[in-house]
């Protein structure tokens, strides 16, 4: 579904992503783990069209069409192609209500009745958001904001959803709650690209995983294999 080959990202003199290739098959959860500064966000942001100078190839094949080269496309086109993202740090619009944040996620759509159904679906996935319906996004707790960010990313009915560090700053119980939902969304047919520093949580649910170190993929394997790999254990799972 998504094929990245030989991706390079430069910021001035920094070579943040140095020839990364990833393959994300339809229907799977693929995770990209690595330490802070490894270049994970740079990759996800390149896919979204947010990185101006990204080089290489990012090819997306929608279910009903031929491959599309994403590099050079604008961020606002992505949701229309079927790709959405929950950015690092959640980026909830603090002054807009929970409902307005969700509506904004459906901005590219015009089928108002179906949008209401999807809002209802998000509230069923995250009942706490329903209670906070009319509250400004900025008044939510970190966990609720993350739920809103995921829910908002679902509102455009994407084929591929990309999550940049959904566990960031959350208590373990909340992380579990959110990862359970990610698993559930995936079982319903969604393809997921999950970027994480929390390797244990990510590897536990991922079909396939890539380990990123200073701009390079240093290891790749099915999630459960990396979970028991001694090198990964030592470096990312606390021994």
């Amino acid at each position: 579904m998504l094929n990245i080959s030989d991706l390079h990202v430069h910021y001035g003199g920094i070579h943040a992503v140095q020839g990364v290739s990833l393959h994300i098959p339809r229907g799977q959860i693929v995770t990209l783990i690595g330490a802070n500064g490894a270049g994970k966000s740079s990759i996800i942001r390149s896919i979204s069209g947010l990185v101006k100078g990204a080089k290489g190839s990012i090819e997306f094949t929608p279910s009903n069409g031929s491959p599309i080269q994403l590099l050079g496309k604008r961020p606002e086109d992505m949701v229309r192609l079927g790709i959405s993202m929950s950015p690092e740090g959640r980026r909830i619009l603090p002054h807009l209500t929970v409902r307005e944040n969700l509506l904004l996620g459906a901005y590219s759509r015009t089928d108002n009745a179906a949008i209401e159904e999807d809002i209802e679906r998000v509230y069923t996935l995250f009942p706490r958001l329903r209670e906070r319906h009319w509250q400004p996004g900025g008044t939510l707790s970190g966990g609720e904001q993350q739920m809103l960010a995921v829910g908002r990313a679902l509102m455009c009915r994407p084929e591929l959803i990309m999550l940049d560090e959904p566990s960031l700053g959350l208590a373990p119980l909340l992380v579990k709650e959110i990862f359970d939902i990610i698993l559930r969304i995936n079982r319903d047919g969604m393809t997921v690209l999950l970027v994480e520093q929390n390797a244990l949580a990510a590897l536990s649910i991922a079909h396939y995983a890539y380990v990123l170190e200073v701009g390079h993929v240093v290891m790749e394997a099915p999630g459960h294999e990396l979970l028991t790999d001694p090198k990964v254990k030592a470096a990312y799972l606390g021994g």
Partner: protein
Amino acid sequence: MSLDMFIQQFFNAITLGSLYGLIAIGYTMVYGILRLINFAHGDILMLGAYFVFFGTTTFCLPWGLAVVVAILAASATGILIDRIAYRPLREAPRISALISAIAVSFFIESLSVVLFTGLPRPVYQPEWLTTAFQIGSIRLLPLTLLVPAISFVLVMLLLWMVYHTKPGLAMRAISKDIETTRLLGVRVDRIIALTFGIGSALAAASGIMWALRYPQINPYMGIFPGFKAFIAAVLGGIGSIQGAMLGGLILGMLEIMAVAFLPSLSGFRDAFAFIVLLLVLFYKPTGIFGEHTEEKI
């Protein structure tokens, strides 16, 4: 001052104030979204007045039609200015766009002097707007009732648009986080164009009404109302539409009443606004409705 005089001055004040307010809305909306002071905004007001002038003279349009055409043309001019002078600088440091704005303002004024000549032109005033009528011992122009009423309606429409429509939702989102808004599928450049279009239409409406009240137009007529409206926007809390209107009304009230009560100050009339600006910047830089300015992400 007699009560009659006071009432008359009161209407003058809310007329002037709502004209400031309408212009201020354009500053505040553009600033809210782009953190840019659109220096060319005052010149749009002047263009609006000139468009009506040429519409009624050169093109022999009926006044009402000329007004509509002028507002649309001014709105298009505002969008064009954004497209040519600001959009290419979106990623550049903010100061670049600011300098570009100043340049555009000078350019429009100079071009207007060349095209329209610097001579002040008299404007056609529909009689029904400028024939005074009497209520008891108060003499009022229909204009002084109509201007605040029209302004009120326009502000209500705008607030409805901002708070109850999709483009309005996008505007509010962009003002906080343009990148995330873009990521959610909003074609940000279109929303920004819409913002310039609306702001410019309101400025033109204000300029046209301004020309009815002070019926002589010249290429520099936008400068002072522009400055004062900007001050009104700061006073009301930049970024806030309600604030811009309120700021305009306060400023209008201050100018008219100060001169009415202390006629000896009339020479300093234009200075009041700047004193207000200094006071606001000194004591409450966020203005009346202003939030604490978070730097844009």
